[in-house]
């Protein structure tokens, strides 16, 4: 009984459990464990927030931050007066993700109508297995807006730039064109690709729920629009050259042709036209023949247009004088096993008359006085056999064989432009020496702001004055090209008529050419004309290329406001010297 009472007597709060004396290490261990768990959590937090925070940062950013690309446009190409020759304008391309694009038949109909496409083709595209298809590339922005308003699922748009060429086929070869992804493929578009190309910029922004930009975060990289290129081209002169060439090729039923105009004071190319040509805005059916920038990529045997260089060298070296008489009778000359012919035989001619009447025999006899090495060095110095390096794709160097391997007959034929080949641009470049008192300056495709660099002196001014006088005689009555005369201006020029080489044999096909400068008293312009395979009965340079030269030169001089340097009358119906091949 006492026991029971004793038990009841003890208070509830005095639980015997509490009286137990636990070992002290147990509580310490627990505290340590909890502390350790905290340390682990802090360590993890530190790891995630500080050491390895990329992943979470990215996840966070992706909720509100957007990287936007700011597109940059390709530079414009303009002529020397600022008239636009090539410009980019934004267009929209419509694409679809076929898996998401579940359109009702009406929607497909609507879309097809806006895209001006066949609904069946459209359905086929939308049913394709691919994960991404372009429905239509480069449609006008107005149409794109209408399509966007349809709010079709799985159909989206992006901005692309389309290049337009307002001058079209007129400047096609010079300006070139770009591919669909803004990459230059031909002409200046390719040559100046680096400068023209824009660099898109980017910026990071925070967008709100409605998709509006709220704030710029991070760094902004501003877009860099492509540089505008100012060409040396003058569109008026280019049009003149192009239309005259087109007409001449049609009239002489020729295969092809080219015209180049160069400003003699600066070396700037004012016009460069080729036929056949193409429309760069619509390049669906193009052939290689149309695409070729012949003036630069095709080398031809120039024929007599090289005679002035031979004669100038002989004058320079003191081998002949202006009035030294060369016996060109009987119009034939045999060297080794080969015979050189004049198309029309002449008697004794002075050196000036050899140029005026374009005698092959005369030129060959003058060349015989020169050492092969001297001739080669001169041809090399005026740029034959070297790539002109204007920057055009496919520029050719032409053919100038090393002098050590020249046979006497080759030296003779080279004196009148056979056995050597040049491009039209090389030929006109070489003629700058006659327009600049013997100085050869580089040609330029872009407008020069500073005066041209000093060029190499090839001939002395005295020699050049004499040669220019001879070239003037060639254009006057009694020369080979009276049709190249221009009322009001003194013209100096040289015809060329060359047989074409076909499989190593000279065929009965011709290249007619004319290179000349005016006004002869103070040359301002050089014009070179080349007509390939004229076949309407006439094939001489003076007949086929001469008139083209005259109209292009006359128009260009008028356009540039060059004062006339001779009376306005032209001696018409004068006897014409028969031209040599």
């Amino acid at each position, binding site marked *: 009984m006492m026991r029971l009472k004793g038990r009841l007597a003890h208070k509830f709060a005095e639980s015997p459990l509490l009286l137990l004396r636990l070992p002290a290490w147990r509580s310490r261990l627990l505290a340590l464990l909890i502390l350790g768990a905290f340390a682990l959590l802090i360590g993890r937090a530190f790891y995630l927030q500080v050491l390895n925070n990329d992943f979470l940062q990215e996840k966070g950013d992706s909720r509100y931050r957007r990287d936007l690309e700011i597109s940059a446009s390709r530079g414009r190409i303009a002529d020397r007066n600022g008239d*636009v020759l090539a410009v980019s304008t934004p267009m929209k391309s419509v694409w679809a993700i076929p898996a998401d694009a579940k359109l009702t038949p009406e929607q497909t109909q609507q879309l097809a109508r806006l895209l001006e496409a066949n609904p069946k083709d459209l359905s086929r595209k939308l049913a394709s297995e691919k994960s991404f298809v372009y429905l239509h590339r480069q449609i006008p922005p107005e149409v794109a807006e209408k399509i966007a308003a349809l709010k079709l699922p799985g159909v989206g748009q992006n901005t692309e730039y389309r290049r337009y060429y307002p001058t079209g086929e007129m400047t096609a070869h010079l300006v070139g064109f770009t591919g669909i992804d803004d990459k230059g493929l031909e002409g200046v578009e390719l040559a100046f690709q680096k400068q023209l190309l824009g660099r898109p910029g980017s910026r990071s922004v925070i967008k709100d729920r409605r998709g*509006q930009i709220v*704030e710029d975060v991070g760094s902004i990289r501003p877009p860099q629009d492509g540089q505008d290129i100012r060409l040396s081209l003058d569109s008026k002169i280019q049009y003149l050259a192009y239309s005259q060439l087109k007409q001449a090729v049609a009239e002489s039923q020729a295969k092809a042709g080219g015209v180049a105009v160069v400003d003699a004071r600066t070396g700037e190319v004012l016009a460069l036209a080729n036929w056949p040509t193409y429309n760069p805005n619509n390049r669906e059916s193009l052939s290689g023949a149309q695409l070729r920038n012949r003036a630069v990529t095709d080398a031809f045997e120039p024929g007599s247009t090289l005679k002035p260089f031979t004669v100038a060298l002989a004058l320079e070296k003191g081998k002949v004088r202006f009035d030294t008489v060369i016996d060109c009778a009987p119009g034939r000359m045999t060297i080794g096993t080969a015979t050189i012919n004049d198309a029309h035989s002449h008697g004794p001619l002075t050196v000036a008359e050899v140029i005026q009447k374009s005698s092959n025999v005369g030129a060959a006899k003058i060349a015989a006085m020169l050492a092969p090495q001297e001739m080669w060095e001169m041809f090399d110095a005026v740029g034959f056999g070297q790539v002109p390096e204007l920057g055009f794709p496919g520029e050719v160097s032409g053919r100038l064989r090393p002098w050590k391997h020249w046979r006497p007959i080759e030296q003779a034929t080279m004196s009148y432009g056979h056995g050597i080949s040049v491009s039209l641009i090389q030929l006109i470049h070489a003629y700058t020496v006659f327009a600049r008192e013997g100085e050869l300056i580089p040609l330029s495709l872009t407008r020069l702001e500073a005066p041209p660099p000093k060029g190499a002196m090839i001939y002395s001014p005295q020699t050049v004055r004499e040669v220019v006088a001879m070239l003037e005689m060639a254009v006057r009555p009694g020369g080979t090209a009276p049709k190249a005369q221009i009322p009001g201006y003194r013209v100096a020029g040289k015809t060329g008529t060359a047989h074409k080489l076909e499989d190593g044999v000279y065929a009965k096909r011709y290249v007619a050419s004319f290179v000349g400068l005016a006004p002869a008293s103070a040359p301002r312009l050089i014009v070179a004309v080349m007509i390939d395979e004229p076949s309407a009965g006439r094939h001489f340079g003076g007949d086929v290329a001469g008139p083209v030269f005259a109209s292009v030169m006359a128009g260009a001089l008028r356009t540039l406001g060059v004062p006339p340097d001779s009376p306005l009358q032209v001696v018409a119906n004068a006897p014409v010297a028969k031209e040599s091949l």
Partner: protein
Amino acid sequence: MVRLNLLLLLIAAACALATVTAQHSARKLFQSLEAEQERARQLEVEFGQLQLELSTWATAPRIEKIAREKLKMNVPEAPRTLSAALGQR
């Protein structure tokens, strides 16, 4: 002591409200700046298109055609040309 604390609390509240307003107006201004920049881009594009249109209208073949056919102009022949020298009377 209590007074000072109250004053500081008041200042803190005012600053907080000012921050909110400033942030709001900054966003408003930023949005209008965005809109103007977009407009500038549009105008730039339009300028390019107009330039294109201008050079399409002004191509040499078209000018020549109108000059010859509509305005009946032609290049003067040599006998009808008179040259005037500069700087002489």
